[in-house]
């Protein structure tokens, strides 16, 4: 029974591949290429980081290097786990209560356990796959940095699989539990609450682990004992993230006994979590769920914050024929609890980042300031890419079946594309400028650098938003349940990787003049610096206009994609 259900799902998937035409196959190839590129870059980056760790403390203090590695791996897995938990909640609400096959399954003589199993597999696949793309390159980079060979990889991946089960099971159970006590719509809102809690938990754990201290090996010279104590302090042993870390470390160090202990712990954890899911599902999951209680009731957040007046105000800045669309774009995004919760999560991460910067010890050399600020610029680029894959890229796909409204209205495709671009780029630009300005003033870098990096960040937000719109129109995915699924569609991944590469490229262009400014004590606005900035601006303009042109061309074909084949 279960297998026939899964077979139907798989068939659906493969027919998508088989029936794609040449152009789609080309895109598929591009897609695979980009994934490979991401893999290689991520592997290289983690290789560099672990190499840097392994050199800390020298040969005599090898255990410090080990502690550093362990700390950072735990932190990495912890963040992965928190994000997986949060992502799963969203995926679970949709798979369990909004999926179109719910009514179909409910009307068939299928046992509840079969339905639950099918749903669990579906939830797992939609939320956990990203872990298997993000983590392996880090494992590879780690193995290369320590020269450990790759034979431990199957064991480590097995541990990774067990590591993902608890987050997915607990998050799904929590959703089932919440929905039991309120309507599904309210449950969606409470996901925001969970998002906030998770953000604060990350902040708290981050503080607890205080990675800024980890990266201050110069303290070895002053208060060495305290530093070493801090590093070797046991950290939340009972979380799967530290079990995962230990499993990886002992697998790669060829210590099978310790590996199997960690694996056993993970296995016990997973079984408990999965049992909890089955029990919650068996006793609490109902397919006839009240989606929204009162027809007229607005969400709690909607009632507290009047988005409409804000949206009205902004839309009045536009010519009348466009103002309606501006209003719709803003309001639709803000009224979607999923979107809103992501926004809150991002805001929390930014706040955390700024708080950390403000506490950095800067008695050190001014060149380090420049480097930290520069790293910060890179981080902002990364953040913009991450935000746009949720907010910008899905915008065209979200029109989906409602697109007839715009397609049959007297709207000029050029205006429409520019409007979509503007609605995406304006908040992103303000957002990133604020981060750059705030962090530069915390760090205390000079005006010249601040100015240069503000220009660089405007260039990045512009080009990345335009790319989001362009790729959003050319590789849309319709009939998806939520933004989450759209951003993890092939188009979303292509966009994420392309924007990461672009941001990386921009940072690379700025490396040379930054190096000069940091160590040569020259102003950034030298010939070299200005040339680099010009290249950044010009490449941003080129990418922006090419992307918007693509978007406009694809706009014309958009309805053929929705209504035709």
């Amino acid at each position, binding site marked *: 029974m279960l297998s026939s259900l899964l077979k139907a799902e798989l068939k659906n998937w493969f027919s998508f591949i088989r029936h794609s035409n040449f152009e789609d196959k080309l895109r598929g190839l591009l897609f695979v290429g980009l994934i490979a590129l991401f893999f290689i870059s991520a592997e290289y980056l983690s290789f560099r980081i672990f190499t840097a760790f392994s050199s800390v403390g020298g040969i005599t203090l090898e255990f410090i290097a080990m502690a550093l590695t362990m700390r950072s791996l735990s932190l990495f897995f912890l963040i992965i786990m928190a994000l997986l938990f949060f992502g799963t909640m969203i995926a679970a609400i949709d798979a369990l209560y909004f999926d179109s096959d719910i009514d179909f399954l409910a009307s068939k003589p299928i046992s509840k356990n079969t339905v639950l199993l099918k749903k669990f597999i579906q939830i797992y696949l939609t939320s956990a796959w990203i872990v298997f793309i993000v983590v392996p390159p880090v494992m590879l980079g780690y193995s290369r940095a320590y020269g450990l060979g790759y034979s431990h990889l199957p064991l480590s991946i097995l541990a990774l699989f067990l590591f993902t089960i608890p987050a997915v099971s607990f998050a799904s159970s929590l959703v089932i539990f919440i929905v039991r006590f309120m309507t599904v719509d309210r449950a969606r809102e409470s996901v925001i609450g969970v998002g906030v809690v998770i953000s604060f938990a990350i902040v708290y754990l981050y503080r607890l682990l205080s990675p800024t201290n980890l990266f201050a090996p110069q303290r070895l010279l002053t208060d060495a004992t305290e530093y070493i104590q801090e590093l070797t302090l046991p950290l939340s042993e009972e979380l799967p993230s530290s079990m995962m870390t230990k499993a990886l470390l002992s697998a790669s160090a060829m210590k099978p006994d310790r590996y199997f202990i960690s694996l056993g712990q993970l296995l016990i954890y997973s079984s408990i979590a999965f049992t909890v899911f089955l029990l919650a599902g068996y006793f609490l999951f109902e397919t006839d769920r009240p989606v*929204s209680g009162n*027809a*007229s009731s*607005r969400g709690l957040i909607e009632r507290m914050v009047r988005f*409409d007046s804000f949206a009205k105000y902004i839309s009045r800045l536009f010519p*009348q*024929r*466009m*103002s*309606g*669309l501006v*209003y*719709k774009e803003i*309001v*639709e995004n803000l*009224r*979607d609890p999923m979107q809103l919760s992501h926004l809150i999560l991002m805001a929390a991460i930014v706040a955390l980042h700024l708080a950390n910067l403000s506490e950095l010890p800067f008695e050190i050399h001014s060149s380090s300031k420049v480097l930290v600020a520069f790293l910060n610029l890179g981080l902002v680029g990364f953040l913009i890419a991450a935000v746009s894959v949720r907010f910008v890229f899905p915008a065209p796909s979200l029109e*989906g*079946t*409602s697109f*007839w*409204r*715009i*397609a*049959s*209205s*007297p*709207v*000029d495709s050029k205006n429409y594309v520019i409007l979509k671009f503007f609605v995406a780029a304006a908040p992103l630009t303000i957002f990133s400028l604020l981060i750059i300005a705030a962090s530069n003033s915390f760090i205390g870098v000079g005006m010249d650098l601040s100015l240069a990096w503000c220009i660089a960040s405007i260039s990045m937000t512009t080009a990345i938003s335009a790319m989001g719109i362009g790729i959003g129109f050319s590789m849309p995915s319709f009939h998806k349940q939520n933004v989450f699924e759209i951003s993890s569609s092939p188009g979303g991944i292509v966009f994420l990787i392309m924007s990461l590469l672009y941001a990386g490229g921009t940072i690379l262009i700025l490396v040379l003049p930054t190096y000069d400014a940091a160590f040569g004590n020259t102003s950034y606005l030298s010939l070299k610096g200005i040339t680099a900035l010009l290249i950044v601006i010009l490449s941003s303009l080129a990418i922006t206009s090419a992307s918007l042109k693509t978007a406009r061309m694809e706009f*014309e074909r958009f*309805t*053929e994609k929705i*209504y*035709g*084949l």
Partner: protein
Amino acid sequence: MANKMALLEIHRVSKQFGSKTIISSLDLNAEEGSIFGFLGPNGAGKTTTIRMIVGILRPTEGKISISGYDTVEDAIQAKMITGYIPDAPYLYPKLTGYEYLELVAHLYGLKNFKKRIFTLAERFDLAGSLEYFIDSYSFGMRQKLSIIGAVLPNPKLVVVDEPLIGLDPPAARTVKDLFIELKKDGVLVFMSTHFLEIAELLCDRVGIIDRGELASVGRLDELMKNKNTRLEEIFLRLLAERREEGSDERRRWEALADAAGRSKTC
């Protein structure tokens, strides 16, 4: 009648999806101040044709013009005078009914539309629901909202794909009255429908499309007088004749036509 202008002109239009031909060389005119019924069996190509008229799909070959505006070349002008009611009312779930209509008004550059929105909404018993989110609407309520949105900008051409699906009797009556009023005001209503009684009741002319080709077109009274039968029988017999001689399908359709001829009610 003869001096009325052809508001909608479909000239040798074909549409292909990939290598599949959905519409082949369709020729059709319809004049202002009339109701045109576009009939045909499932999968005949009605929705596809309608989507081309409203500028959602592009003809692979041929031209469509509305009041002289080409739907591809002068798309904006053509859309400006066209209202469209799709076969399924997919609207923006996170907007309220009023916000949706306001969006439409803005898109068409209307001024002082508030009163008109409420008048129309009252006619469809929707005024009390305008402040609610569309995702709390029932199917019929969405359909009503979509109808109001189509006629709100005072179009010269209203294109309707299956107008009465999901509507309650009062709303169905309101739609029929509305169409007759529009016709009196010189608007062309172009509608596809499977309810032949509705076509009989409302339409001045009908076109019957079958497998992407126009099988018959003409004034309703002429069609009915010549055969002196009900539209259902005419429709079924016409389709039967287009099926292959001696085929099972033809025999089945002929039997249906005979049955329709014998029965007095639907």
